[in-house]
């Protein structure tokens, strides 16, 4: 089993291959086995499984945002609301129209993609920060719709969503849902990996890197920007739909601007323009509050005063971690991971 110790690629196909070496195949297989075995080992701990499910759903949505922001270069502050569109659409389809879960997820994804493309239209003329604020407008407008369109969304009281069900098998516990979420996450990763190495993916990156040059060499910018908004929102919609069927009751607060900001921080901390980066960022940002909760739980026995201000401390530390990350590792976790990999590739002869 040869370990890769340099770059020996001679064709484009080799360069863009997902499985670069047999060794990487081995590690991925091992990771898969661990992921599948994991819930059986920790079957008793509902909390742990809950955290894992949140991570898996966050990964799907973060990958979606990374396609838009990381690969296409369009900053979006409305991703949380797009997730909400998927969640409400899926819930509505299931409870009011009685559609099966699989149809719900796909249709919810498509509905969200359409909504995302509509709110992507300003990208025709807007760039950079102006577009970021226009997507913030999308967030505010959609949130307003979630609260006010009571006939569909149930308003601020929320909407009850039945658990996911495929062919009579209900994913109604944390343990069962884990496998559903895992399957969807793996699919999302594979699809995203493949999207970014197709023609569209290359068009996205061309637009990000220098859109005028891209236009000159014949990339229809607006069309690809809209496609990017659509794909990104599709992922958000699927993630939102899964979240709705998992959590059982959805309210507008689940999809507020803080969530959008959190997703943005995930992909920035993970690494813009990197699928692995979105996974790492999603894992990191979902685990961070839980770890902080754990730590404060340990301290609160000795210092009961901490319980009252715990939320504030958590928020402060959350902000501080983002700041420190940006100052010390501006390219994200993915870049750090690459550096470590490259170091070991040639170890111990790293010169």
């Amino acid at each position, binding site marked *: 089993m040869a370990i890769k110790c340099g770059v020996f690629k001679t064709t484009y196909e080799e360069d863009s291959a997902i499985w670069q070496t047999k060794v990487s195949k081995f590690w991925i297989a091992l990771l898969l086995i661990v992921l599948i075995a994991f819930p059986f080992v920790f079957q008793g701990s509902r909390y742990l499984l809950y955290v894992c499910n949140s991570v898996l759903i966050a990964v799907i949505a973060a990958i979606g945002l990374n396609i838009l*922001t990381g690969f296409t270069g369009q*900053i979006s502050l409305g991703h949380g609301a797009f997730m909400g569109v998927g969640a409400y659409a899926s819930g509505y389809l299931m409870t009011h129209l009685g559609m099966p879960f699989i149809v719900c997820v796909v249709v919810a994804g498509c509905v969200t993609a359409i909504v995302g493309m509509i709110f992507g239209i*300003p990208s025709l*003329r*807007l*760039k*950079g*920060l*102006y577009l*970021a*604020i*226009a997507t*913030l*407008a999308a967030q*505010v*407008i959609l949130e*307003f719709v979630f*609260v*006010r369109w009571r006939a569909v969304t149930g308003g601020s009281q929320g909407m009850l969503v039945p658990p996911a069900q495929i062919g009579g098998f209900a994913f109604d516990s944390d343990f069962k849902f884990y496998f559903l979420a895992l399957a969807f996450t793996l699919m999302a990763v594979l699809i995203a990996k493949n999207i970014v190495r197709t023609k569209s993916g290359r068009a996205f990156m061309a637009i990000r890197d*220098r859109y*005028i*040059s891209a236009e*000159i060499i014949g990339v229809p910018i607006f069309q690809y920007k809209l496609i990017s908004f659509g794909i990104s929102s599709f992922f958000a919609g699927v993630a939102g739909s899964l979240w709705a069927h998992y959590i059982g009751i959805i309210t507008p607060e689940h999809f507020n*601007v803080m969530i959008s*900001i959190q997703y*943005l*921080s995930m992909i*920035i901390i993970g690494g*813009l323009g990197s699928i692995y980066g979105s996974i790492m960022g999603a894992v990191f940002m979902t685990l961070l509050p839980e770890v902080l909760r754990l730590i404060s739980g340990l301290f609160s026995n000795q210092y009961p005063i901490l319980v009252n*201000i715990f*939320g*504030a*401390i*958590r*928020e*402060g*530390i*959350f*902000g*501080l*971690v*983002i*700041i420190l990350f*940006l*100052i010390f590792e*501006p390219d994200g976790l993915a870049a750090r991971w690459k550096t470590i990999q490259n170091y070991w590739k040639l170890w111990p002869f790293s010169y």
Partner: protein
Amino acid sequence: MESIIQSLISGIVVGSIYALIALGFVLIYKSTAVINFAQGELLMFGAYLCLTLVVVLKIPFWIAFVSTLIAAALVGLLLERLFLRPMIGEPAISIIMLTIGLASFLKGIIHVIWGSETLVYPSIFPTEPLNIGGIVVSQVYLYSVFFAVICLILFNVFFRFSRSGIAMRAVANDQQAAQSMGISIKKIFAIAWAIAAVVAGVGGILIGNINGVNASLGSFGLKVFPAVILGGLDSIPGAILGGFIIGILEALSGIYLDPVFEGGSKEVVPFIVLVVVLMIRPYGLFGTEEIEKV
């Protein structure tokens, strides 16, 4: 009719405060090309600090007011030195994210120090409302507009005539050219943050006097975005006009649309107008159009 005038007036008052905060945004953006998402938290800081000085330490309001502004300036300087300076040269999205992190960090600290319940300013301005030509206006409102206008004039004078003001405009225009003329860019960045913090502090104290002080003040930072973008990110007159437009729009939609939608349209209407305006004028009303070359 009277209620319309009433709410128009309150729209103008809120608008003047928006204009003030928007001014802080534009200042930072103009000289450092950073959008500061933590502006709302700076505002909260000013409001809380002044309140504490007045209520707990029993310092007369005017002294408290001035010392709050000095403290705000110091905080602005500190934030710039600690967090923003290492980020010079990083892509815009990273810096935006940093200010978002900063917002969360500051909110956490403020929450730890002052708790989360709403605090109310003692009545600093005379409480009996004035009657101007049949329209009743509470004096707090008048003072707010008065302060806001004073600040806006002061800043205009500062940018036009003072040495640092002109230096800041030079940096905004062309960083390299400014640097080669002997202007220290670091110093300008620091001044920009200090001034933005002071402006936010004034806004916070005014808003605190009207609405009371609590954690929701931080959301003012987000509310001001439509004002800033509407006017154009790098235009000071644009920020002022945008502030008033958004304030008045909020007030009007409060009267005409809230009965239809059962409330809440105040938050949305400015954003809808914003998107429409941006589709027609992509750089806001007065923003400079970026001409890009390959």
